[in-house]
């Protein structure tokens, strides 16, 4: 069975500091990983996916199959990055997303 673990429920950093949100997964096959973000009073929206290898709003995430991790990183956090972040896994043909429990990021001024 697939599982996604986000060990930090809450994370606070100061503006301009680096931030890393941790995500570990458990899946025997070839996973497809996503990061979703939910800003205050807004709906859940896709931030980035590992297949694209893109940087969105300064965030990047690298899939590490050896460590089964997909940590989200940003070198200089901004106050507008404060939000709930969810890591999610799509197990190939299953077409269903398995979400972690989320990390609430607060960027302090």
């Amino acid at each position: 069975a697939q599982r996604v673990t986000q060990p930090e429920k809450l994370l606070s950093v100061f503006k301009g500091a680096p931030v890393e949100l941790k995500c570990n997964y458990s899946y025997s096959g070839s996973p497809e990983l996503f990061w979703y973000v939910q800003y205050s009073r807004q709906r859940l929206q896709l931030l980035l996916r590992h297949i694209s290898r893109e940087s969105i709003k300064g965030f990047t995430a690298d899939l590490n199959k050896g460590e089964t991790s997909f940590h989200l990183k940003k070198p200089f956090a901004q106050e507008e990055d404060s939000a709930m972040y969810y890591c999610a896994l799509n197990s190939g043909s299953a077409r269903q997303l398995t979400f972690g429990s989320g990390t609430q990021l607060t960027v302090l001024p």
Partner: protein
Amino acid sequence: DAGVTQSPTHLIKTRGQQVTLRCSPKSGHDTVSWYQQALGQGPQFIFQYYEEEERQRGNFPDRFSGHQFPNYSSELNVNALLLGDSALYLCASSFAGSKNIQYFGAGTRLSVL
């Protein structure tokens, strides 16, 4: 494009009742997935509909059922409501050829008393 729309936004029911939640997918999308999000948890997959059929189902009892209409909109039905069914119910739509990029609605908040 209004994106994914869900109705109603809030709902209060009592134990044992039945409820129907509705979802209209984003324009051009043909696949609808439903998720349950309990307080403090991530969304949990209930099931997915494509071509008016349930294509995938998560670990939810048969009390949870759904339907997809020819216009791709969808309903989620929950029978014999339990207190534990209180949650935010999210609908997500996608296009079958889009490599599972799902777009989420704002959700329906269900409270079971």
